[in-house]
């Protein structure tokens, strides 16, 4: 077991290095660079060249890459070219809002999806089941920005109940319950957007698994022993049907750190998605690479956690 764990860790490091190297090469070799942002036609070519030199872009690619790699290994992610601040500080600022938003979104999505699927599985082919199936499909098919904008129009602009964007009001208190309450109100609409759009897919997926499990011998045997349908679904079928969901949720972990870009844009949420989009547009290589490394680490960790969880829950897949 220990050697398996060591092998997985070594493989993870190789994956991280490969992702980082590939991304560095792609971003550096793509046409354009940080100086492309200077568009004033009055400025001579020399001005842009000075920018390139200041960011080290006049050095050969291999030298730049090796410097970056050596610094990264030492834990120094460099200074963002766009924000003139340490990349580590920028990521540390953007990660908590993203984790909070997507974490609550995933929780809403999971709990909501499971509840709907269970409800449907206990009343298959009923009117409610059909109605929920259509609703789930609609939610699944709707792009998240459209759902977000719809919610904003209704609950913020028309009814005025909830704030339309940001994490806090400009007049929010500096600390205490008032600030917490203000933050909670700002979370409602973006969390609902992520939850509603993800809930549909999860409900569709789990409903199918639950119906399949209900036709299995162990569920039929439980029913034959006089177990109610509700109890058979909740205590027998659901734990087995939920197993594949662990893998799905494990794979969702990267979203916790890389963010949900469209939702962040619609709600002006100061998270990782927006930060990395701006970095990509500005060709801010240090920031882009920092974000890539964190995202890749989350993918590796998510996979690892999913594998471990499944093997703990299902003895059949243990090594």
């Amino acid at each position, binding site marked *: 077991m220990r050697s398996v764990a060591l092998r997985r860790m070594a493989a993870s490091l190789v994956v991280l290095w490969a992702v980082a190297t590939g991304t560095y090469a792609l971003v550096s070799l*793509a*046409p*354009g*660079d940080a100086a*492309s*942002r*200077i*568009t*004033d*036609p*009055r*400025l*001579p*070519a*020399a*001005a*842009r*060249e*000075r*920018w390139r030199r*200041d*960011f080290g872009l006049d050095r050969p690619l291999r030298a730049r890459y090796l410097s970056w790699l050596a610094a990264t290994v030492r834990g120094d992610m460099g*200074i963002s*070219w*766009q*924000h*003139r*601040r340490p990349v580590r500080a*920028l990521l540390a*600022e*953007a990660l908590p809002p993203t984790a909070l938003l997507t974490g609550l979104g995933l929780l809403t999505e999971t709990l909501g999806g499971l509840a709907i699927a269970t409800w449907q599985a206990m009343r298959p082919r009923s009117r409610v089941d059909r109605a929920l199936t259509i609703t789930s499909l609609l939610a699944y098919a709707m792009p998240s920005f459209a759902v977000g*904008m719809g919610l*904003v*129009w209704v609950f*913020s*602009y028309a009814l*005025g109940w909830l*704030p*339309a*964007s*940001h*994490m*806090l009001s*400009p007049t929010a208190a500096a600390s205490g319950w008032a600030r917490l309450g203000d933050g909670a109100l700002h979370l409602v609409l973006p969390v609902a957007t992520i939850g509603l759009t993800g809930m549909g897919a999860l409900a569709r997926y789990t409903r199918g698994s639950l119906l399949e499990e209900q036709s299995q011998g162990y569920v039929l045997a439980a029913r034959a022993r006089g177990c109610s349908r509700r109890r058979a679904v909740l205590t027998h079928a659901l734990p087995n049907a939920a197993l594949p969901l662990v893998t799905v949720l494990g794979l969702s972990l990267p979203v916790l750190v890389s963010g949900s870009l469209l939702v962040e*844009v*619609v*709600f*002006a949420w*100061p998270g990782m998605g*927006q*930060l990395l989009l*701006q970095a990509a*547009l500005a*060709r801010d290589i240090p920031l882009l690479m920092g974000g890539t490394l964190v995202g890749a680490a989350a993918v590796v960790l998510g996979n690892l956690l999913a594998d471990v969880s499944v093997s703990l829950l299902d003895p059949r897949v243990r090594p």
Partner: protein
Amino acid sequence: MNKTLRLVGMAALAAVLEGCGDGSGPHGVGQELIVAIPADVETFNEYQSAGEALENAIIDLLYPTLFEEQPDFTERPPSFAPRLATEWQFSPDRRTLRVKLRQDAVWSNGFRVTADDVRFTLMAQKSEEAGSLFVEQKAAIRGLEVLDSFTFLAHYSRVYPYQLMDLNDGHIVPANAWSATPFSQWPHADFTKELVSCGPFRLASRIPQQTTILERDPHHWCPARLDRLVLRVIPDAAAQVGQLLAGQIHFIPMVPPRDAARLRQSDTVKVVSYPSRLLGFLAWNHRHPALQDRQVRRALTLAINRAALVEAVYLGHAKVAAGPVLSSMWAFDRTLSPLPFDPAEARRLLVQAGWRDSDGDGILDRDGKRFELELLYPATNPMRAQMAVLVQADLARVGVAASPRPTEFGALMARQDAGEFDAVLTAWEEATKVDLGSGWATAAEQAGSGNFFGYSNPELDRVLADVGAAPDIERTRALLARAQQLIVADQPVTFLYEAQQIVAFSSRLRATPNPALVFFDIASWHMVPP
């Protein structure tokens, strides 16, 4: 002393003081203006900035310039009113400018603003190490001689019409706070920590990527009537409009034309549009064999229905451009008008240039080569995407096959610099300093130049060289008119549009945004009760 050489700003001072928040307004009673900005401010140090217009407008709220450029560029080269400088006077040979600074200007850390700050700023502007974008612009200013704390002499190496403007460009920064950071570290230094400023506002708090709050600086010589200016980052234009209508924000500096009509229907919102300095054009690559012929370029311009394009894309918030100088500028040659939309004449000119549809496929050809063009535009710009389709349709009617190609901005700039394109839909912000040399003179090196399309006309180069040496404004105006005529005759690009800037704000706000600067005269802005 020759009176025309004396530029004393006392009269203009009176004009500015009239518009200055003179303390009579209701400040101190919670006057707050919430402004939507599409992206966060990256730096408050102008000498680190890539020159984005809105960022510069925000920096202008925190740092002073020597003079206040007036929005009178429609009639003459911009005049200047006092700001940090109260008086200025040229020497008889115009090679030295004596400037007197106001004595009541104070940095937010309590230090006085002195001539040493101005000298330090010029050093930063001329520093290649600092990565300054002002190096070339300040080249004619040899140096600054400090006479006393509030008086200095600026020495010029030559005489030219824009001496005052070149000295004024760029904000004065605090030597007492920023000189501790060597210029070599400026490109990567964070100046936001403990920001020292001297403007009508100062930094109160900041949550990156979300909100920056500026508060009124009570020590400023022209105190603002607003207590707080809240800059909210709202990347989505539709969300900005929705929040303005819902009363959650008060000011949008740039409204897309498609939203202007909807906003105008609201009783709680005012929409103001005015000529911006954005000139849009379709640049033809002069290295392309077909596009080297000016008759062909003229034909392509005649083939494009620019009035219809402007109406369809800008919905009445732009006009067709006639040439390289905006029609709202003092230097515009009023004898020029846009070339007409004339597909028949376009076809005739193309046939004259040897382009015929010899195989009957609807596409012109010459020497076995079809007239095909790739039309690049920035992928993130939906208005240019719309224009590209309209241009494609118009050119197809005269037998030219144009393929619109959305291109990532960095990649687009790289292809422009490398000359690897046929045509690019682009635009640039014209400066109030009319300088045709940077965009239209033969470029020694095309990479990074305004003239990335490779246009060259020796006669124009001679005229533009004369403009640089012109002693007075009337001679400059005549030379610029000649230059415009030569450029329009050559049609190195197809001039498409002069856009308007649309600003929307709460009807509670009393404000006067104008084409010079979106926050111009902000000291007098204030909110009235609903």
